[in-house]
C-alpha cells in the first residue's frame, strides 16, 4: 500500500499540489485522472521521488519514503517499475538489452539467465521475435509493451504508469489496459496509473482520484463515477458525447 498524506508541492511561486491525500491499494489499479495541467504528473513524480514534496508524507508499506535518505530510497526504488509516457527506452540498445538493463545493474545473473528472464517478460506482454530490433524499429504500442516488460523484469511491488495510452489507437489502448490489469493481479502490485483516457477509467478504474487545480476533488471507483454529483468531475469525464451516452445507457440499465 502507498499512502500520500497532505502533500504540497510548488515550483517557484506556483502551487501545483495542495493538501493531497490518497491511498493506493495493493492488487488494484489505482487511477489518477485530471485535465492537462491539473498537477497529476507532478503528483506521480512526487510519489516516486523524482520531485521532493514541500510538505506532507509519502509512505510505502508503513515506511516514510519522503523523509528517507538516498541509500534507503534506493532499496525501495529497486521494487518500483515505472512506464513513462514516451516509453523512455534507451534508443541505442536493442529491445532485449532494454529489458535486461535492470537485471544487469542489480543482479548477479549470467547472460543466459538474463536473456531467459527478459524473453519471459517480453512474452508476458505478448511480444515475440523482436529481441534484436531497436526501439525505433517498433511501433508505439510495441514500445509501450517493451517498457512494461522492462518495468516488470525485477518483479516490482509497485508499478507506475504515466499516460500509458497516450498516442495509441483505441484497440491497442484496450490491450495495454488489459495487460496492466492482468499484471496487477498476477504480481499483486500496487499499481498507480496517471491517465486522462476515459476508456481506462471505465475499464480498469478500481480506485479513481480526480485531481482538479492541484487538489484531490473526488475519489471513488468506475461504477461510482457514473453517478457522482460533482460538477468539475462530470465536466471532465463526460465532456464527450460518447461518454454522456454511455452514462445515460448505464443509468437506464
Amino acid at each position, binding site marked *: 500500500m502507498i499512502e500520500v498524506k497532505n502533500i504540497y508541492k510548488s515550483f517557484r511561486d506556483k502551487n501545483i499540489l495542495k493538501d493531497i491525500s490518497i491511498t493506493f491499494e495493493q492488487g488494484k489499479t489505482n487511477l489518477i485522472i485530471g485535465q492537462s495541467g491539473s498537477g497529476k504528473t507532478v503528483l506521480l513524480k512526487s510519489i516516486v521521488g*523524482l520531485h521532493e514534496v514541500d510538505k506532507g508524507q509519502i509512505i510505502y508499506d508503513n515506511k516514510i519514503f519522503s523523509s528517507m535518505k538516498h541509500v534507503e530510497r534506493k532499496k525501495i526504488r529497486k521494487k518500483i517499475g*515505472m512506464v513513462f*509516457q514516451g516509453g523512455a*527506452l534507451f534508443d541505442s540498445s536493442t529491445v532485449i538489452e532494454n529489458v535486461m538493463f535492470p537485471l544487469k*545493474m542489480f543482479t548477479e545473473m549470467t547472460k543466459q539467465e538474463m536473456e531467459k528472464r527478459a524473453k519471459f517478460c517480453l512474452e508476458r506482454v505478448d511480444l515475440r521475435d523482436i529481441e534484436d530490433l531497436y526501439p525505433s524499429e517498433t511501433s508505439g504500442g510495441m514500445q509501450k509493451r517493451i517498457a512494461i516488460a522492462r518495468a516488470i523484469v525485477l518483479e516490482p511491488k509497485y508499478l507506475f504508469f504515466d499516460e500509458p495510452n497516450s498516442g495509441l489507437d483505441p484497440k491497442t489502448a484496450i490491450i495495454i489496459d488489459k495487460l496492466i490489469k492482468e499484471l496487477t493481479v498476477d504480481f499483486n502490485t500496487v499499481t498507480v496509473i496517471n491517465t486522462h483516457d476515459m476508456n481506462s477509467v471505465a475499464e480498469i478504474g478500481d480506485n479513481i482520484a480526480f485531481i482538479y487545480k492541484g487538489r484531490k476533488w473526488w475519489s471513488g471507483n468506475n461504477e461510482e463515477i457514473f453517478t457522482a454529483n460533482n460538477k468539475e468531475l462530470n465536466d471532465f469525464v463526460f465532456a464527450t458525447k460518447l461518454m454522456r451516452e454511455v452514462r445515460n445507457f448505464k443509468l437506464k440499465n
Partner: protein
Amino acid sequence: MNVLYQIGKYFYFLAKIFKKPEKRKIYLYLIFDEIDKLGINSIGIVFIISIFLGAVVTLQTAYNISSPLIPLWLVGLTARDSMILEFSSTIVGLILAGKVGANVASEIGMMRVNEQIEALEIMGVNSSSYLVLPKIIATVLFFPILTIFSMIVGIGGGYFSAFITDALPTDDFLMGIRYWFHPFYITYSVIKTLVFAFVITSVSAYQGYFVKGGAVEVGKASTRGVVYSSILILLVNVILTELLLK
C-alpha cells in the same frame, strides 16, 4: 548571482558523478564504448586539422624569413614547437570541444527530454555517474593519445609542405625538428590535454543533463556546452602555461 548558482550546481553535479559506481564491470564496458565513440571517431578530424596546421605553420614561417642571417632549419624548429606547445593541445582541444562537446551535450540532453534519465533514477541508478563518468574517463585516457598523434601528423604535414614546395629544403626542416628538443614540452602539452578533456566532457554533460524542454533547448544546451568549454580551455591554457613553463 546566477553564475554562482550555476558554478555551485556544476560542482554538486561533479560530486554525484564521482560517487561509487553501481557495478564496475558495466562501467568498464561503457568506457571502451565511449573511447570508440568519442576518441577513435575523432582520429579523422584530428588528422586533417593537424596535417594542415603543420603545413601552414611551416610555409608561413619559411616565407616570412627574409634575412639570410637566419638559418632555414629554424623553420622546422618553429613548426615542431608550435605543434607541440600549442596547436596539438589547444587548437585540437578547441576543435574537439566542438565535436565531442556537442555530441555529449546533445546525447545527454535528448535522454533528459525523452525521460530516459528519469527512468534510470527510478530504477535506482545514479544517472549522472552512469552517463557521464565513462565519458570523462574515456576522454581523459584517449585525448592525450590524440594530442601525441596530432604532434606527429602536424610535423609530418610540415615536412610534406617542404617536400612539395620550394619553401625550404627538406634537410633543413629535418635538422630543425631535431634541434634543441625539450621533452618536457610534450609533458606540458599532455597535462593541458588531460585538463581540456575533463573540461570539455564535464561542462558539456552538465549542459545536457539539466536541459528542460524539447529539441530546441537541447540545441541551445549543445551550443552552450561548446562555447563554455572553449572559453574554459582558453582560460585554463593561460593558467597552466604560467604554472608549468615559468
